[in-house]
């Protein structure tokens, strides 16, 4: 409150829910069981959460289901009361958490606009003034006096959204707005977000859409089991979130259920992925150091040398790269005895893969005949995280530059200058 640039201040906020263990919620039960104190389990929805939101900031709250993000938004909107700590909100808050709150299917679009508009704090005269605008934006001119229950869900959402953007709130709290609607509608939402951003309104958005957070939010908060575990730029926090959810689902170890075939003359004893610090990591970052580590053991004395093939494929099966290592040259396999083995390393200094699911398939082959000793289909499945959430499969490593118009374009000018000289004259202008 002392600082006028702060729109929302949350100070050591905690919220606990009492989940009753007795299912019955009746007076009769309370009277007949008056001696036994009602039993309940305490669920910590939020634990000691503190942060500030500046005026005009667009902040995203992310976290897995049940991490407390909706509870936090409800406390900010004054729907829930904090149990401990303090929440200060400077400015008029949009009382909407979701679209279409207060809509009644039995009422017509017109009646719903006035009812739901009243919840938004819009006066009757004002609603009359913007009525045509709302209906026009929702593209529902022909359905003004139809009951809402006869609307398709898309029509209903359009109506709700057109109405919601009329609210004058300085601080907007939104919960999963992007979860509804088709692509065209989502685009409309995003256009409105941009408008709000330009107008300098403060927006708090709870969403599962990491893309929306990275594109629109200046800042993101990451909640995990009621604790604030991440607070920073949208790019960093979403990357942290994706690493966190990835680590829950997979492991860099050799998956137990791997499709495996081969003669077994040489076998793979283990395989894992490591990051630059040597820690296991099934969620490598684009551009980061990645090492595949593979253990082998020779089971047959007759084998003197073999080839290791590592194949990286995208989730949909597209093979991105295949790399082969003839092992005998390095490891003196020919000398080794049966039962001996070793470790093969495959380092990628700057992982060129972009966001998505990938897998590594490994095969040990005989050098001469190419016979399969051991083949592990999708031995490791991993999820690459690109902090910038770009589309595509690979980072080409290409460099952007812009040649100003005054200079003749390269293909138009006679090739007087040597090709080697050209790059030095360019001013590199890296685009994100």
């Amino acid at each position, binding site marked *: 409150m002392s600082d006028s640039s702060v729109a929302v201040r949350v100070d050591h906020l905690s919220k606990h829910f009492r989940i009753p263990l007795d299912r019955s919620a009746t007076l009769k039960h309370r009277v007949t069981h008056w001696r036994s104190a009602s039993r309940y389990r305490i669920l910590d929805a939020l634990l000691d959460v503190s942060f500030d939101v500046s005026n005009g900031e667009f902040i995203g709250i992310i976290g897995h289901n049940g991490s407390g993000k909706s509870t936090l938004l409800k406390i900010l909107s004054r729907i829930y*009361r904090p149990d401990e700590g303090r929440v200060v909100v400077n400015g008029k808050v949009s009382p909407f958490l979701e679209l279409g709150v207060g809509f009644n299917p039995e009422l017509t679009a017109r009646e719903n606009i006035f009812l739901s508009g*009243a919840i938004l704090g819009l006066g009757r005269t004002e609603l009359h003034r913007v009525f045509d605008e709302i209906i026009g934006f929702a593209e529902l001119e022909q359905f003004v006096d139809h009951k809402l229950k006869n609307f398709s869900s898309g029509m209903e959402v359009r109506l709700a959204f057109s109405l919601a953007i009329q609210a004058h709130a300085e601080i907007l709290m939104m919960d999963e707005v992007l979860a509804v609607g088709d692509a065209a509608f989502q685009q409309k939402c995003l256009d409105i977000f941009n408008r709000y951003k330009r107008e300098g309104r403060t927006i708090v958005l709870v969403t599962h859409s990491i893309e929306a957070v990275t594109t629109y939010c200046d800042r993101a908060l990451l909640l995990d089991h009621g604790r604030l575990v991440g607070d920073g730029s949208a790019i960093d926090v979403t990357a942290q979130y994706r690493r966190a959810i990835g680590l829950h689902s997979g492991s860099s170890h050799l998956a137990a259920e791997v499709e495996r075939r081969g003669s077994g003359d040489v076998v793979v004893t283990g395989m894992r992925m490591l990051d630059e610090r040597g820690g296991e990591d099934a969620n490598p970052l684009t551009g980061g150091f990645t090492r595949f580590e593979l253990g082998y053991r020779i089971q047959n004395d007759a084998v003197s040398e073999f080839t290791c093939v590592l194949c990286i494929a995208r989730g949909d099966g597209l093979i991105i790269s295949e790399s082969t290592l003839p092992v005998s040259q390095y490891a003196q396999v020919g000398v080794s005895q049966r039962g001996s083995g070793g470790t093969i390393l495959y380092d990628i200094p700057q992982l060129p893969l972009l966001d998505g699911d990938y897998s590594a398939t490994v095969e040990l082959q005989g050098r001469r005949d190419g016979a399969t000793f051991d083949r592990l289909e999708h031995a490791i499945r991993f999820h690459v995280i690109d902090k910038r959430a770009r589309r595509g499969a690979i980072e080409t490593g290409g460099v952007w530059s812009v040649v100003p118009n005054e200079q003749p374009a390269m293909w138009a000018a006679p090739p007087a200058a040597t090709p080697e000289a050209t790059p030095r004259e360019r001013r590199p202008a890296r685009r994100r």
Partner: protein
Amino acid sequence: MTATADARRPGAGSAPQISDFHHYRQLTLELAISQFKLRYTQSVLGYVWSLLKPAMLFGVTYFIFVDLFKINDGTQFYGMQVLLGIVVWTFFAECTGSSMGAIAGSAGLIRKAYFPRSIVVIAASLSSLFTFLINMLIVFAIAVLLHQIDIGLRMLIVIPLLLELYVLALGLSLFLASLHVQFHDVGHLWDVLLQVLFYGSGVMFSLTYVLQRLHYALAVGVKTPSPPRLTWIIELMTANPITQIIEDLRHALLAPEAPWTELVVTGHLVADRQYAAVNAPWLLPVPFLVVIAIFICGSLIFRARARYFAENL
């Protein structure tokens, strides 16, 4: 506007301002109007339903009590008096019944948007009030048409009486609604209590009639039931604000010859002193005090519980 929610200062978040007040007043009206619309646009008969229910109750009551048991206090339009009582009672029962479930019924709204929770209950009660006022107009119109009752200044007392009735119903609604969020069987309990109250409120017999019976019993020296016990019943009935409201409405609108309830309990100013059997002036303020107490308690309990509605629903 600055809103502060502080765990240590429970009331700190609710500092209403003028614009807020205007906004909430409008929200209340919109909710009440849409509920009123919904109640009557979803059925074929529409508004007729709200007339049919008291009309049926009236038909049955009139047949049993007036035709069959010949209950009549000698005033001119006894049937109309019963009808008036039933219209008032229908409002009371419907208003408390529908407002009680209003919080649970608007769970979606309460979990998703912030506004003072009492708005939902007030809107539900207003919606019942609209119906009631229309019904009252119809009763009045019938009375004027059938009997050419004399319109006088005493009818103005109807306004504070209706206000008293509404405050009573709203206070009870707030109390019941906050209880209902936690205990869903409050509805059944309230139904039972309404049955008892129906007979304790002099809906289908006027207080005058009860007094006449008492007087008669005293005059002819009937030993059973004993007079003291009857007096006790009368006193309890007049302490009940619903009895007082119905009786006074009857006197103001239909039966000028019957006394005000207030005069009944003080036991004087009755021409032939036939009502003088009860003399308890201390009963005079009791109905009003009951209304005020119920309203204050209901509001306070609601206020204390309302903070947790969103999470308890």
